[in-house]
């Protein structure tokens, strides 16, 4: 059959779908169906809620992190000071790190917004919080007056020393020239353990606050937060996007979004997020425009699932 004939044949068949139905009808009570549905779905919803409830794993605070994993906290604070943390090298919208954005050829959407949420990890996450203390450590002055090269030397040396120390414990670090870094990070650890850092980081000299960007990024730069997420099967390579804590179903409708992160070439691509977002955009548009896409719109004719749905109609033909 030629394309024109096929199109004409489809239009002919659709003609019946296009005009008001002139065949037999059955009684239908919209409001009754609505009422029955409200009762049935209400029973199911309330029943599931009563039986399974909903999870509420307490949030992690900088205080709980500092107490539970002080070595990880100090290592992370050192990386924030030295500008070697994930956040420090993230690029837009947090900072201008060169070549940090996810791109696809000339497409660089990440740079589109520019640095809208500026975060200087050394100052915003370590130095500024320390300056708010009643008695800031005198070593702060050493850091402030030092050159960038000197700061990098200190933080690199201390980072390396922490890696080599037993249990990565700052108490076991070998002697060396780390400048004010050990004192500053230890002071930040003490502040965090006392619970003061949570408030300082989010409030930033303001009474009101709605923005938890700094605290979230600081937490994420450490290993402790990620380890907790791994234990709750929430990380990206564990289909975490569609999981909830515990055994409660999460956003299962994100299964396809999550799927791409599990398979190559996406899984190991440095621009995986951009690739997956673009892929899902294209697939969403395709599904939305199915009525206009030859082939995709014809699959229901080729695979006759409709014979099951309307079996009564076809039986009485």
């Amino acid at each position, binding site marked *: 059959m030629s394309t024109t004939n096929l199109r004409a044949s489809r239009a002919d068949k659709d003609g019946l779908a296009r005009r008001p139905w002139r065949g037999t009808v059955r009684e239908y009570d919209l409001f009754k169906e609505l009422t029955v549905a409200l009762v049935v779905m209400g029973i199911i919803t309330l029943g599931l809620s009563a039986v399974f*409830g909903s999870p509420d*794993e307490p949030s992690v605070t900088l205080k709980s992190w500092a107490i539970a994993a002080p070595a990880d906290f100090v290592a992370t604070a050192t990386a924030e000071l030295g500008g070697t943390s994930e956040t420090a090298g993230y690029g837009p919208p947090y900072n201008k790190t060169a070549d940090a954005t996810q791109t696809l050829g000339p497409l660089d959407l990440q740079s589109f917004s520019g640095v809208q949420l500026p975060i200087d990890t050394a100052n915003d996450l370590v130095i500024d919080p320390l300056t708010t203390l009643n008695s800031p450590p005198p070593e702060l002055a050493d850091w402030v007056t030092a050159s960038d090269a000197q700061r990098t030397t200190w933080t690199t040396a201390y980072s390396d020393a922490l890696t080599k120390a037993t249990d990565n414990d700052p108490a076991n670090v070998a002697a060396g020239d780390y400048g004010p870094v050990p004192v500053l990070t230890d002071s930040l650890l003490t502040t965090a353990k006392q619970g003061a850092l949570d408030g300082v980081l989010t409030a930033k000299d303001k009474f009101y606050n709605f923005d938890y960007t700094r605290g979230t990024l600081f937490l994420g730069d450490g290993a402790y937060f990620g380890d907790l997420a791994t234990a709750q099967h929430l990380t990206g390579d564990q289909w975490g996007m569609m999981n909830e804590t515990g055994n409660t179903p999460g956003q299962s409708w994100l299964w396809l979004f999550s799927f791409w992160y599990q398979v190559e070439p996406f899984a190991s691509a440095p621009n995986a997020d*951009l690739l997956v977002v673009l892929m899902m955009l294209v697939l969403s548009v395709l599904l939305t425009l199915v009525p206009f896409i030859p082939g995709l719109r014809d699959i229901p004719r080729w695979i006759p699932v409709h014979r099951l749905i309307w079996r009564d109609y076809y039986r009485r033909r």
Partner: protein
Amino acid sequence: MSLREHPGTNTDPGATPEDADYHTWTGKARGWLLRRLPADKLLPEDQPSYVASWIYVFGMGAIVSLVFILASGVILGLNGPAWYHVSDLGHFVNSVHLWSVELFFMTMVVHLWGKYWMAAWRGGRALTWITGMGAFLVSIVTAFTGYLLQTNFDSQWIAFEGKDALNAAGIGAWFNVANLGQIFMFHIILLPLAVGAVVALHVVLVRMHGVVPPLEAAETDAQLQRGAQGDTGEAGR
């Protein structure tokens, strides 16, 4: 402005509202609406006889789930996002919110795939399909913001992980998943309005166009013949 007789004094008693002669923009709009969606289409008492399958209940299931989502969401919103951490009643309402969302997506996805296999976009119903897909996609974003509002470990982690895809797409600065105030506004105002509007338009379009007839339905089919057995419809009237 010209003076005319009151329309009630010269209207043909047999005329329907759709036949009336409208003069103003408002009247013409009313006429257009009444022609496209007369009362018996909006609130029908019967449906074509082929509307006889369990697949048809899932659309209504999704709408009803949305009712439970909105009701539980209003209670949670009025009490603030941290209420459910400290109240047993709040925790139960939070559970209702979560499970009604799960049921909403479950019924909506079954409805969507049912309509796909029925090729339900036929006969000028493409916009009905598109608005249905729109409702699905906007609902996904709305649910995502809800998961960000849990103010617990899960929402912390979702914010940390979720930022990367949004930043890579260039919208993370304006849709900042770690900004609770921004996400709260999206979740309780903008996105519910969007879901409500798209779902309402979808339902109106369904009523306007009617339920799509079976694939390959033909004029010779029994249910389209006059005097068909068990016929209670227009063909038999």
